[in-house]
């Protein structure tokens, strides 16, 4: 609990800044929806005619005239990409930053097992991602009430669950990498989140690259799939669970054996 509280305090400023930025952008997106919805028929036709570009972002299968379609693309990219960057930043700096700044020596000279330190840090990361998503959900609810429209609650709930799990998987993978590093891998963490995002774009472009959907956590956050099937893709999601569990197990295994120099 001490480690958890300590991590939450250490990450407080970053959490506030990222949450405020993502929530603000999502709020703005939703507030401009009524204005845009009247022109959405034309926008949807335009996207449908843009070929590969629309296909890359899954916009060829989505009806922009509907709130779910609009939300999954506009807000999904903000929460998806922004949330992934935030999660990657948390994960990659969790263990490596302590070694880079030599605070690991201070921490590990106390009578706390490394397993407890890893658990405390992991719970803190999960809590921070959860807080960001809860605030974003709250802003979404208030914004939707403010513009007074009917929304498909189940679809939105599935989108939010998928985004949360994607962020958690990104955090777990970068947390695992962090356990192997002895210097800050901040750039590598952010780059990995960006690579995940672009792998999904490539997978959208051609069916031959479908395997990439099993690798990137963005595979199961695809708005078009969730809206059309009213469900998260089970195969991609299961693959994501495997990566998440493997990442966490590997992080525990490595950090408990690691020399702190």
């Amino acid at each position, binding site marked *: 609990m*001490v480690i958890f509280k300590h991590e939450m305090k250490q990450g407080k400023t970053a959490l506030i800044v990222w949450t405020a930025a993502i929530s603000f952008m999502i709020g703005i997106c939703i507030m401009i929806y009524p204005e845009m919805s009247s022109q959405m028929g034309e926008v949807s036709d335009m996207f449908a005619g843009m070929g590969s570009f629309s296909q890359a972002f899954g916009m060829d299968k989505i009806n922009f005239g509907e709130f779910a379609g609009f939300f999954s693309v506009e807000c999904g990219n903000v929460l998806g990409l922004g949330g992934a960057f935030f999660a990657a930043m948390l994960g990659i700096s969790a263990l490596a930053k302590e070694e880079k700044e030599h605070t690991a020596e*201070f921490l590990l000279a106390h009578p706390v097992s490394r397993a407890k330190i890893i658990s405390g840090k992991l719970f803190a990361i999960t809590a921070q991602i959860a807080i960001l998503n809860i605030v974003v959900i709250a802003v979404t609810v208030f914004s939707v009430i403010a513009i007074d429209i009917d929304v498909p609650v189940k679809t939105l709930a599935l989108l939010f669950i998928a985004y949360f799990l994607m962020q958690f998987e990104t955090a777990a993978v970068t947390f695992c990498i962090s356990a192997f590093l002895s210097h800050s891998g901040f750039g590598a963490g952010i780059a990995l989140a960006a690579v995940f995002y672009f792998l999904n774009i490539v997978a959208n472009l051609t069916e031959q690259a479908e395997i990439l959907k099993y690798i990137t956590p963005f595979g199961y956050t695809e708005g078009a799939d969730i809206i059309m099937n009213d469900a998260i893709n089970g195969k991609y999601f299961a693959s994501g669970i495997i990566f998440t569990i493997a990442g966490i197990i590997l992080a525990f295994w490595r950090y408990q054996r690691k020399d*702190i120099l």
Partner: protein
Amino acid sequence: MKAITTNHLAKYYGKSRGIVDISFSVDEGDFFGFIGSNGAGKSTTIRILLGLITATSGLAEIFGQDVKKHKTSILRKIGYMPSEASLYSSMRVKDIICLSAGLRKMDCKAEAQKLCNRLELDTSKKIRELSLGNRKKVCIVCAMQHKPELYILDEPASGLDPLMQHEFYSILKERNKEGATIFLSSHILSEIQRYCKHAAIIREGKLLLSDSVERLGHTGVKRITLQGVDSIPRLEHIKDVKAEQGTISFLYSGEPVLLLKALSILPITDITVTEPDLEEVFMHYYAKEKDGYGNI
């Protein structure tokens, strides 16, 4: 019971040498100095004792318990002060001290306050605002506030001003009198000589010797100072020659009779024979070109 025991301890970082074959022990209640130059292996040994790194081979025990198997229970008995004093820069001093106590699941507020008063530490400041000396003081409070049975201190006094060094060693002496064991590494040999009962010298990862500080000074070497001469006597076993106007000083480890014979023909006005201080002993063991008395 022994507070610390190491037996043929070795650590390699890939092919690089950390320590090679370190065997020594520290009695409970001892005030033990660990002497060595930069890169000699002092910090590597300390890190193995704390479980921060794993030894390649050999055994390390604290209070009879293997440091690998009983790390957490051992760390409860230890107060550790790292050499670099790296702390969370955005935190306030009082929060770091509180975090350290919290990690030990102890309420150390009263003792922490006493230590902060003695060390004149402002607890409201952020770590990033502190000088090295003040960050060292924070580390001292964190290492001492829970009154551990064993203090492991890596270069503790570096960065502290002379007054604070004096206060710091006063606290250590008090804790030692109360029964705590002190194990400290230092470059400041005069401090080891002044405060420690026993000491060990480490060089290039190998332990050169471990003995009482008093006996370490008795190496068979004498510092000879001659007044009224400008050149050294023609003798073997002479080292560390220092010459000033009309004064010659050197370390001598040969036969006394040969020295007296050589001196009898020189126009000496005064002669002083003293035991070398610990610094000279240290230099003696660190001399690269070993002669008759350089070997152990």
